[in-house]
């Protein structure tokens, strides 16, 4: 009898260590072992900040660019939840984690009718790495899968939800008078995360909302511009505009940093930019 009780008590711990009772993080985002603990901790706390944000004075034009029905902590949380499923570290090498599922796959993508995934198998969020592998596969008619966080994920949509983060995410937002755990720096990192999340949207020639080549201006000649009013840069600019207002107790330098980041993102929009369908595409 005691033996049975013992097994019942120990079993959950064993299963948990095998990953069968794997506990997902906030917004069900799973961190791959390639993410350093320090980065994982900071990013988890960044995501928790979203729940405490309050927004006001959001215009219909802002919402049009953000491409959301409303701007709230809930809608932003859902936005990420649908687009980011895994976060991998800088050392994660997609080339070595990639497996060919079909080497002559006929890509005939369909577009999600709604923002929710129609299949259980499809991970409902995506990131740069996932999007890049999907687009690379689409270009060469190869269907791939990726090993991420002890799982094998079929890369059959731009929404697969694998985002790669690196030290740059934390070092590029350095402010002398502000610690990495300050609200301002968290908001700057989150804006980058939302930018990357937008790369999981779009279909056809606009699948992944790719950046366009700047034909004039500060970044002429580089693929660092935006031709979509609802693309990653403009989404980032709009969010930073509202993050600025939500940055309570932030000092003037921190507020200026948010303003500068918003300005940089907004400066990437090219003349004649239009709003495009953001529904993601998938293959069966």
């Amino acid at each position, binding site marked *: 009898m005691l033996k049975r009780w013992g097994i019942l008590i120990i079993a959950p711990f064993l299963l948990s260590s095998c990953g069968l009772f794997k506990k997902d993080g906030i917004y069900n985002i799973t961190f791959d072992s390639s993410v350093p603990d320090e980065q994982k901790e900071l990013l988890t706390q960044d995501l928790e900040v979203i729940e405490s944000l309050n927004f006001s004075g959001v215009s219909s034009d802002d919402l049009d660019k953000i491409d959301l029905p409303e701007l709230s902590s809930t809608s932003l949380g859902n936005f990420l939840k649908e687009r980011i499923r895994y976060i991998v570290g800088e050392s994660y090498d997609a080339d070595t984690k990639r497996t060919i599922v079909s080497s002559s796959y006929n890509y005939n993508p369909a577009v999600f009718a709604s923002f929710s995934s129609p299949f259980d198998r499809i991970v409902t969020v995506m990131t740069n790495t996932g999007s890049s592998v999907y687009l690379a596969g689409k270009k060469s008619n190869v269907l791939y899968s990726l090993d991420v966080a002890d799982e094998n994920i079929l890369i059959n949509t731009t929404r697969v939800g694998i985002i790669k983060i690196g030290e740059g995410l934390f070092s*590029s937002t350095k402010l002398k008078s502000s610690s990495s755990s300050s609200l301002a720096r968290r908001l700057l990192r989150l804006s980058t995360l939302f930018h990357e999340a937008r790369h999981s949207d779009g279909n056809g020639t606009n699948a992944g909302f790719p950046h366009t080549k700047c034909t004039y201006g500060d970044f002429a000649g580089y693929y660092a511009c935006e031709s979509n009013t609802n693309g990653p840069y403009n989404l980032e600019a709009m969010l930073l505009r509202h993050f600025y207002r939500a940055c309570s107790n932030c000092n003037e330098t921190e507020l200026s*940093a948010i303003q500068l980041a918003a300005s940089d993102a907004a400066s990437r929009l090219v003349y004649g930019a239009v709003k495009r369908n953001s529904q993601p595409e998938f293959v069966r």
Partner: protein
Amino acid sequence: MKFKIIATLAFLFGLALWSFRSAETKPVLREQQKSPLALANQLIPELMGKKDTSSMVGVNTAEVLRENEKAQFRNYLETSYVRLPTLQAISLSKDGDLHRVPPEVLESSEVFGYIAEKLKSNPSLTRDALSFYNACAANEQLITSIRAVCARNLIDWAKKAQIDISQVHIPEKILQIVVVLPERN
């Protein structure tokens, strides 16, 4: 008499030579390096001909301190202006990742932050700050995102101080960004 003339000529020659040499050793200022306060502010009537000429004689300690603060602030604006990131700085950026906001742009938040703190504590500094923002917004050698933030600050601080800047021309490409940027409360 002859000696006096020779001595005077020698003195004048020496003076001319000295002034020529000192002018030669002065650094040649690029357009961007010129003092933002030295630029004509003919488009902001409130900034025209309003040089503070109050005598230091008979002023109290508080006024002297204010004058010192103003002088220090002007000095800060002049030195900070030449540190604002230029287009050339971006192209020489070491990491070369132009997909993200250049680090030089975020670093200048210290300048904007410092100016804002000073203006909040001493609104009499606003005019000098407006000259700085006006020069920065118009400077084509600076990064566009920096110019837009300068223009945003120019508009917001002028509004707060009720200074008319309606005659200031802000380029259309800068204005398109300005409207996206959050306004100062």
